């Protein structure tokens, strides 16, 4: 799960990280009011689940409250990487002496959380990683002991030769790690971590990705989910225990298991078609899930045929067959369907489908070819 910058700032603040104040505005007038309350220059920042906000025109400085209103007006409603900006963060502009990067990421290679710091902060950390990887210090944390103070101190000294700055940075690195663990993060970044002319170290931006699997024990973090920022079909899928990602094609795919779902999409492409989505109905077998899957797939107006590829293991083919029959009774699908079922209770499933006028195939390649042909036929 992604959370917004302002929410990540709250989490960091709660762990003691020095983060300047800031408030959320959903209208230009609110932005003006917040700016007036701070006085002086403010920064107006789009709150969307996308990187590259600055380059997309989603971050602007404002000299006074009137300017803040105008800047907010310019940012609210724009699209950044396909996401509409619904709210902006208004925060006092800081005097910046230097900008650094501080991040923690779950690294599958080393099977540990890795802390990364670089004195070359700012918006182009990917660029630094590609062109000058030595400018990034990395440390793999042993999760059994957590980040140790001397490790944080060493990273901080690498960042700032000045002892006073290094001491502040070491504390911030420890606090960021604590926040990362406490909020179930797989990624936490402060970019930039700044120093001010007055010799203070502060976090003026924050990004966190949360492990979905940890949310069940973190109700406060789970409550930060911004449902308005989610695609409605993807939200409906998530709430039904399905996993769905919409794509641009016209062959609607319904598969059990993520690997098989991806392989099915690949095969659609292989036979000259274009998958409309990734949809994994998961391991359990529940006809209701199949009905929801139908509703989600048919809500995409681009879909011209529906492809079922089910390999029964835990999933029982007869449950899926019942779901298909039930869904086509309840909603007017109005689209051709190609079905392949193999595995647990396959015979029963084939019988159920036959009784209801559907044909069931057993070969993956054959059913994909059929679905692609049906989509092409429907398009003509």
């Amino acid at each position, binding site marked *: 799960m992604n959370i917004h910058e302002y929410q990540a700032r709250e989490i960091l603040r709660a762990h003691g990280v020095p983060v300047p104040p800031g408030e959320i505005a959903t209208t230009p007038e609110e932005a003006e009011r917040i700016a007036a309350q701070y006085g002086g220059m403010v920064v107006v920042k789009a709150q969307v689940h996308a*990187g590259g906000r600055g380059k997309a025109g989603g971050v602007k400085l404002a000299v006074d409250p009137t300017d803040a209103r105008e800047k907010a007006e310019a940012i609210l409603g724009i699209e950044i990487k396909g996401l509409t900006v619904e709210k902006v963060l208004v925060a006092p502009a800081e005097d910046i002496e230097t900008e650094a990067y501080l*991040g923690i*990421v*779950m*690294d*599958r*290679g080393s*099977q*540990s*959380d*890795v802390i*990364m710091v670089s004195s070359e902060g700012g918006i182009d*950390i*990917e660029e630094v*990683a590609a062109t000058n*990887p030595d400018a*990034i210090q*990395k440390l793999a944390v042993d*999760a*059994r002991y957590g980040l140790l103070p001397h490790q944080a101190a060493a990273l901080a000294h690498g960042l700032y030769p000045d002892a006073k700055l290094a001491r502040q940075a070491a504390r911030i690195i420890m606090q960021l790690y604590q926040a990362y*663990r406490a909020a*179930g993060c*797989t*990624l936490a*970044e402060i970019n930039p971590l700044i120093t001010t002319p007055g010799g203070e170290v502060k976090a003026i931006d924050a*990004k966190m*990705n949360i*492990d979905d*699997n*940890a949310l*069940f*024990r973190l109700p406060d973090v789970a409550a930060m989910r911004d449902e308005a920022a989610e695609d409605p079909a993807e939200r409906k899928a998530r709430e039904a225990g399905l996993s769905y*990602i919409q*794509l641009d094609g016209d062959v609607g795919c319904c*598969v059990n*298991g*993520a*690997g*098989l779902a*991806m*392989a099915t*999409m*690949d*095969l*659609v*492409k*292989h036979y000259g078609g274009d*998958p409309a989505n*990734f949809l994994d109905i998961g*391991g359990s077998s529940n006809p209701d899930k199949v009905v929801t899957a139908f509703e989600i797939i048919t809500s995409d107006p681009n879909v011209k045929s529906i492809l079922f590829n089910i*390999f*029964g*293991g*835990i*999933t029982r083919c007869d449950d899926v067959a019942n779901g298909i029959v039930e869904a086509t009774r309840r909603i007017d699908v109005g689209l051709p369907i190609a079905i392949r079922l*193999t*595995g*647990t209770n396959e015979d029963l499933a084939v019988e159920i489908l036959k009784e209801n006028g559907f044909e069931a195939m057993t070969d*993956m*390649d054959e059913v994909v070819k059929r679905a692609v042909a049906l989509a092409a036929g429907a398009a003509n």
Partner: protein
Amino acid sequence: MSIFIDGDTRLVVQGITGRDGSFHTRQMIEYGTSVVAGVTPGKGGQVFDDTVPVFDTVAEAVSETGANASVIYVPAAFASSAIFEAADAGVDLIVCITEGVPVGDMMTALPYVHEKGARLIGPNCPGLIAPGIGKIGILPGQIVTPGPVGIVSRSGTLTYEVIFQLTRNGIGQSTCVGIGGDPLIGTDFVDCLTAFEADPHTSAVAMIGEIGGTDEQVAAEFVRDHMSKPVVGFIAGQTAPPGRRMGHAGAIISGSEGTAAEKMSAFRDCGIAVAERPADLVGLIEARL
């Protein structure tokens, strides 16, 4: 023969009285696996299906029955605790089927398992099956047939698909291992490839990967440098949209986005024949047996 499981495997089922645990225990017994004990805290003293004694702890199960392997079907919130317990009780092999385990939990469980000298397969995996010998987990027994091909995969149902196509074309398997789709897992491709290379009854290996991470690239180099047996591969997710899961910090660490194209070209560079479709694995394997 087989890897990780053989005729001496004595299995304890953690979560034996649960919905999934009881269903799959029956399936494993039916397939011929020696299930010697079950564990459900508070239900010690019961007997599952009149044949399998249930204990309160894994330690008791091990000392009473000589269990040397464990399979875990407990809910995600308790899965890492079950892994710690199994490792502590001294079993050699732990297979964790549970999906949805918080990655932070695995972060501490993995080094513990390693210190205790146990092998963990999973979590979020279908387990393993050695055709004609036994199975641990949820892989369907009816689709496998004994033979010379080792299978290692990050997927569940896609693995079944590949096994199904091989079996349908008369090609049997030595052992099929589903290592799991989570970012942090106990046994990786290289561990399985090492075991297949050493197994006298495996003469070729099919490796099935997915987008994300760099495990496949690491495995490809291992094949090039350390394997004499032919390996063929497939990568799922050639059409997957990039960047939906991980922010750029992941790419900074790995120096790679983990795309299917990258992995397929790593396979080819290291002499691994790549199948465009799952069905193509059949021909590639056949040509190498």
